């Protein structure tokens, strides 16, 4: 494998109750692949549905699907129906990038990921999301699916800079084996 060959986060998606995207963050080298990533997230949403139908599920859904040998998506579902999706690029970042955590560089190349390795990232995203909800000036959108379908005007995307920065930080800090972000 080329590039960094330490798996890295390629994309983090926050999806609302009615499968409406609230926020999507992209990470290098995938910054320009917005369309591909939305497609990837969208296809992951179906797996949420399937998993929900099959059994009572834990918040951590683990591996949703591996698209090819490079990309895989992992999911987390809160009890209020908000979905966090992380897409992992098994080839990691271009080596030119300065890795924020030097430890990450010394890790041996990883071929597989255990589901639990993404738990710290999901926990951090959830904390960030809770902090966002606690902000009195942020109004979470409460709409029925019909309203979402026929909605015109502005979408419910998250605009909070604090939240977006935090998601960026999480995506850039995470590496396999990290215990807390």
């Amino acid at each position: 494998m080329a590039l960094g060959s330490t798996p890295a986060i390629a994309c983090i998606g926050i999806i609302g109750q009615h499968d409406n995207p609230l926020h999507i963050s992209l990470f290098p080298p995938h910054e320009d692949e917005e369309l591909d990533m939305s497609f990837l997230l969208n296809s992951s949403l179906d797996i949420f549905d399937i998993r929900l139908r099959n059994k009572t599920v834990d918040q951590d859904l683990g591996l949703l699907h591996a698209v090819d040998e490079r990309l895989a998506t992992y999911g987390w579902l809160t009890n209020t129906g908000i979905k966090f999706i992380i897409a992992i690029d098994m080839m990691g970042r271009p080596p030119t990038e300065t890795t924020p955590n030097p430890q990450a560089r010394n890790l041996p190349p990883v071929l597989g990921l255990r589901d639990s390795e993404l738990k710290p990232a999901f926990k951090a995203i959830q904390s960030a999301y809770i902090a966002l909800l606690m902000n009195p000036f942020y109004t979470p959108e409460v709409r029925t699916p019909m309203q979402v379908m026929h909605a015109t005007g502005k979408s419910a995307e998250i605009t909070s800079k604090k939240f977006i920065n935090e998601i960026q930080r999480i995506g850039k800090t995470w590496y396999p084996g990290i215990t807390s972000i």
Partner: protein
Amino acid sequence: MLDKAKSGIWKSRVEKVNAELVTLTYGTIVAQLCADYENDYAQVNQQLEKMGYNIGVRLIEDFLAKTSTARCGNFRDTADMISKIGFKIFLNITPTVTNWTADNKSFSLLFDENPLADFVELPDDGRAQDELWFSNILCGVLRGALEMVQMSIEAHFVSDILRGNDTTEMRVTLLRMIEDELPPDDE
């Protein structure tokens, strides 16, 4: 006197309330005020100050009963009392008293932490960052409380971490002592 009050009886019976409850309640009030006044932040600041004043004139009674403190000797004592006991009892924080003027009539309270503003991110409309003093209720509380103990003061925030400043600083200035006035024509 301060030490006596510090070790006072109030310590054993401080009532506790969930911090998030306070934060969210206050946050909701401010957000609602902003909505009601259609983001006229000057009005919102004024309303918060007024609400704080009404809280202060009542809260001082509770404060005095809990701490059973005597009259402060000078304004410096008052400042210490506010920071080390007042804020400690009601918000469990101890803002730093600093930046005294030479005449001892004006000081700053530096808030290292502000439970009212946890989680808060000011609206990104280009004005809130410059106009809204989110925690302005505290200014009113001080004004109300001190007025009941014969001190007329003026308090306002000069910086706030929420606005991107490095510190949260409130400036408190003693205007005058309110002398006990006899009712006119009281023979």
